[in-house]
């Protein structure tokens, strides 16, 4: 077991080092990598739920909650600090996740996905229609926050937010991998394989799933806050169902077998988008769709699965 995880850890270290160093040479990469890391944090939450066999088709609601927490603070209180935003965004999303989770953990499979979708669409339409508070579809500008009281120029700030994202991503990556390897994480897996047996052991499957759900909402909120700070805006699009689809997409693209899949998928997704959008304007989704189809048909375990399959082939098909 450990022999298989170690190379992945090496790749993870290389990936995080590259995202720390590469932007120093190409400054436009700072924002790109910050976005990759922020979205990877959200996708960690999706992977956690996938471990339990549940696909949330509404996780963008937590992403939007985090983003709007920062936006509302900026709009109604003014100023703000990155640390404060992230703490608030994460906690608000976790509380919201607890509220929604109490309802949705009773459902499985397609109904779990559908109910999540419905909750997120309710949030989306409120954000879009409560014009007086949210500016509707235009969204709310998020002013550039300080970090622990220090303020920065736009040029420095893109590096500040990059390294903040990197720090959180590393902590979240390590935390999620530890969680998935813990007894509680293994119970998540049991929900997927055989929930009834889990309950025969005297464990409440709903509680196990609820804990996972709140953690994943927390991660979604933090990722959303980071993206809102990076892009300096929060719009209802953050909570639209296609955004949720995008996160599940990234999770499958990267591979849900390991937490690294979240970042591998996010890196591939954002790079394809970054370059496709620059050259093809309106058709970058087309490229992404084709990439996704190829991955699903030829490497259903994602990028991480590809690597593991390669590794297994080297070990003689074991």
């Amino acid at each position, binding site marked *: 077991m450990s022999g298989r995880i170690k190379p992945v850890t090496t790749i993870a270290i290389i990936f995080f080092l590259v995202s720390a160093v590469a932007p120093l040479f190409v400054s436009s990469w700072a924002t790109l990598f910050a976005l990759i890391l922020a979205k990877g944090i959200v996708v960690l939450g999706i992977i956690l739920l996938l471990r339990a066999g549940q*696909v949330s088709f509404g996780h963008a609601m937590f992403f939007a909650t985090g983003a709007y927490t920062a936006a509302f603070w900026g709009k109604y209180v003014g100023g703000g600090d990155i640390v404060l935003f992230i703490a608030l965004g994460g906690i608000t999303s976790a509380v919201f996740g607890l509220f929604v989770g109490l309802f949705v953990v009773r459902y499985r499979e397609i109904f779990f*996905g559908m109910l999540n979708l*419905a909750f997120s669409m309710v949030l989306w339409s*409120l954000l879009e*229609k409560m014009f007086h508070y949210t500016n509707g579809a235009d969204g709310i500008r998020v002013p550039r926050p300080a970090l622990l009281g220090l303020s920065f120029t736009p040029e420095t700030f893109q590096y500040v937010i990059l390294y903040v994202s990197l720090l959180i991503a590393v902590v979240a990556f390590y935390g999620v991998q530890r969680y998935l390897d813990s007894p509680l994480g293994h119970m998540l897996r049991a929900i997927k394989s055989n929930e009834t047996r889990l309950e025969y052991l005297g464990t409440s499957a709903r509680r196990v799933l609820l804990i996972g759900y709140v953690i994943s909402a927390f991660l979604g909120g933090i990722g959303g806050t980071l993206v809102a700070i990076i892009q300096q805006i929060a719009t209802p699009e953050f909570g639209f169902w296609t955004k949720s689809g995008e996160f*599940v*997409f990234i999770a499958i693209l990267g591979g849900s077998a390991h937490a690294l899949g979240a970042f591998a998928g996010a890196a591939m997704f954002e790079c394809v988008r970054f370059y496709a959008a620059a050259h093809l304007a309106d058709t970058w989704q*087309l490229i992404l769709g084709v990439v*996704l189809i190829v991955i*699903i048909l030829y490497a259903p375990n994602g990028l991480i699965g590809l690597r593991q399959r390669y590794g297994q082939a080297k070990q003689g098909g074991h």
Partner: protein
Amino acid sequence: MNSTLAILAILDGISYAALVFLVSVGLSLIFGVLRVVNVAHGSLYAFGAYLAATFSLAIAPISPWLTYPALLAASIVIGFVCGGFIERFLLRPLSGQEDVLQLLITFAAFMIMDNLQRLIWGVQPIFAAEPLRLLPNVAVFGVSYTSYQVILLPGVALATLFGLRYFLRRTLSGAVILAVTEDREASTAIGIDAKRVYFVTFVIGASLAALGGALASPTTSLVPGMGADMIVLSFAVAATAGLGQIEGTALTALMIGLTRAFVIYLQPEFEVLVPYLLMVLVLLVRPFGLFGAVQVRKI
């Protein structure tokens, strides 16, 4: 709200419900048989609408009455070409794999179709109201309304409802589809070609979505994003009704159509909220939908 507005709201609701029913029942049928939530369903609706508009704009100069067969032709073409392609080349290779992969591959199809639609038809709104203008207005309790929306659309919806009922419960092909739905292995063992059943069902479901779009095209301007809006709405209707429930889908579509129409007249800003709020409320009380049956937990 006076009585004229109330009648207007009811008529709006009925004509809208007819369109929503066509799309949702296709989604529900596909889910019932293939166990796949087809995310590309909204794109099939949008493609149906755009192709129907293209056909009817092209044929209207020859004879305006030919626009009606053009709408039908467009939906069948989309159902066969796009629906057939998705089933044969995207879903079939994934049979037996995890459900999430099937869901995602239809999501990929949605992304591709959404962009193709922009490439083919552009982003400018398209109007093709010929079929709507041809039919006279009718007076319903003193309120004038287009007969296209208040007679033709509900008529097609009802014909589809009874047609599907008859097809599934009274014909041999229908029995074959139900047999595959109940137990794929047993039905394969007695010589039924399950792959063909999946293909035919998907094409029927896709054609219904495209038909919904084609019939909607004369009543609204066609814009990018219409597919994304329709897909969640039909999710909401199909899930609220209980997946795979044909009659339930009709009632739910009517319920959501009417509620939405009244909300538009009374509190327009909450229009988009209605279907999702209803879906949340219904699923919280009845986890498998209004008309859905409780599934037995397997050990």
